[in-house]
């Protein structure tokens, strides 16, 4: 019962017709691009309905009523993974979405950052091990996170300590795209003020959000990317129901004082965000993760010497030789694993 893909009226549509020359295009025809997204945010900001609206079908069912007797104790953080197969303009995407439930819900949230960081590093470590095997697994599925969507609560003022800390700590491991959840609680003026304040905070604290303009070689794309960056953080409203008109079905959210159309880009940035995530910038995000973030992590990890490599990699750093001699036994142990 999903409605057809929304018509894109933004300027990005002209770009989509000329496919970018990238090896991912060819791989994708057969297997489906591996794409991993993580959703992080406090409960009640619309993460699960966002996923359902993004995939145009109900991927995560609505949660059942929480137990009132345990309301005084916060649930611990957990990572729920959902696999979806999508097709966007001819490209097959094998999407894996990880929902970080329980973030920021407790009284003392200082341990949440460490848990997220451990999770992301664990994915990197898996790939590191896999790369240094003698016999690589052909069907290995890459679980590295390509983008982390962080939901900011619509307070209307500025970023809170929790938001600042999260972006600061995780920005070096994953691409972070900040998003305003439940943006329908802000009027037009409030939304503009809020976006401005958030951008000012990001500049002031030098927070490492994903820089759309990281690839300076492609000059046409650079101008469009700068326009996109004006929209950050993206305002998101999620769909409650689908109204069937005579012409087509419209995804809406209804209030006693009016009805919001999700796919109208004058009312919220959902359409733009979806296009960026699943069409125009999917290659950029994946490339940045693999070429920059993962390589930085790898360099840092190997310099510290916590990883024995054996006869695997040619492009090891200078300090690797010591690491090799120190831990030949651990390397062989890992190969057997």
């Amino acid at each position, binding site marked *: 019962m999903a409605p057809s893909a929304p018509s894109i009226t933004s300027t990005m549509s002209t770009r989509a017709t000329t496919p970018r020359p990238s090896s991912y295009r060819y791989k994708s025809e057969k297997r489906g691009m591996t794409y991993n997204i993580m959703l992080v945010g406090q409960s009640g900001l619309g993460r699960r309905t966002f996923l359902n609206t993004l995939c145009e079908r109900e991927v995560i069912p609505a949660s059942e009523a929480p137990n009132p007797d345990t*309301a*005084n104790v916060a649930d611990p953080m957990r990572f729920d993974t959902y696999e979806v197969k999508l097709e966007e303009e001819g490209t097959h995407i094998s999407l894996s979405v990880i929902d970080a439930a329980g973030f920021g*819900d407790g009284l003392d949230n200082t341990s949440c950052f460490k848990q997220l960081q451990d999770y992301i590093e664990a994915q990197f470590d898996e790939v590191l091990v896999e790369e240094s095997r003698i016999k690589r697994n052909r069907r290995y599925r890459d679980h590295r996170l390509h983008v982390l969507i962080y939901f900011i609560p619509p307070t209307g003022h500025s970023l*809170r300590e929790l938001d600042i800390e999260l972006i600061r700590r995780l920005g070096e491991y994953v691409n972070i795209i900040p998003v305003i959840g439940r943006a*329908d609680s802000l*009027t037009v003026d409030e939304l503009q003020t809020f976006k401005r304040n958030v951008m000012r905070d990001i500049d002031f604290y030098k927070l490492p959000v994903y820089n759309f303009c990281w690839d300076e070689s492609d000059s046409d794309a650079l101008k469009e990317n700068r326009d996109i960056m004006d929209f950050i953080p993206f305002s998101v409203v999620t769909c409650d129901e689908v109204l069937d008109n005579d012409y087509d079905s419209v995804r809406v959210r209804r*209030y006693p004082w009016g009805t919001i159309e999700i796919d109208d880009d004058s009312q919220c940035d959902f359409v733009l965000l979806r296009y960026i995530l699943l069409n125009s910038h999917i290659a950029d995000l994946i490339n940045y993760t693999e070429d920059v973030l993962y390589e930085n992590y790898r360099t840092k990890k190997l310099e510290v010497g916590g990883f024995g490599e054996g006869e695997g990699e040619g492009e090891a750093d200078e300090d690797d030789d010591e690491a090799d001699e120190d831990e030949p036994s651990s390397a062989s142990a890992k190969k057997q694993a």
Partner: protein
Amino acid sequence: RRKKQLDKTVDINIHKAELEEKMFSVKLNVVDTPGFGDFVDNNDCWLPVVDFIENQYEQYLRQEQQPVRKGVVDMRVHACLYFIRPNGHTLKPLDVRAMKAIGARVNLIPIIAKADTLSPAALRQFKKRVMDVIDAQSIRIYQPPVDSEDEHSSQRNREIISAMPFAIIGSDREVKTEDGRHVKGRLYPWGVAEVENDQHCDFKKLRSLLIRTHMLDLISTTEEVHYDKYRTTQMKTRKFGEPKLKKNDNKKFRDEEEALRARFTEKVKLEENRFRQWEQRLIAERDRLNKDLEQEHNLVKQLESEIEAISNSGSPNGKFFRK
């Protein structure tokens, strides 16, 4: 503003206003607590609030015990509005703990803030869930008395109670709706959410409860129930006129206190070391001087004994040597 973000405690701001309606004037004091629940670690962030409430009771208690009780200033809190964030699921642990602590000391009225982000069905469900949690966790909230003299007000009271917790939309701006009315509300691209429209939110009910119908009840329950409870517990443990014990167990201050104490003991240790070294040097100096003195003394003695020897043995040859 940026400095405040990293400041680690909750502020208390007091605003005063005078309202006058139909020849009846009210001195209204509103206390705001910015910073509540905004931090990563929100443990004990309700302590400044609870301390403030108890301090007001304490001030009133002291004034009552004075010999002259004429100009008593009553700053006791008569009602506390707790703003719940509408996350659509249930109360957060922070809300539960804070409401328990506050509700035991003052009339607590829970409110759902920013109610314009929940659709009507979601709002109803959320209200029910919040009331379930309040019952299950034994949180004390303000229950307005239902029965009164006439049926009309009883009916109104029942309506008010059934609407708790109140869903509020806040706005102080006037906007124009599609059908041309000028109302206080919030302007969205898809419509205007009106503050004073009962279909949109419960603001009118809350306002009438606070300032019209139940104002007297709120004041008298504070005086009779909450203040009295405080007074009884304090009188049991303190003698008349004794000042209150101050318990400084705010965790953040405790950390600072520990750090200061550690620094102080270190400084004291350093100074002691310095004194000891100085003392040792002085002693060494003294010993050295004493030794020199002894040497000189020995030399003098030797010379003296030589003189003696010479003068004793020199009598036959005395004339000879004296030359």
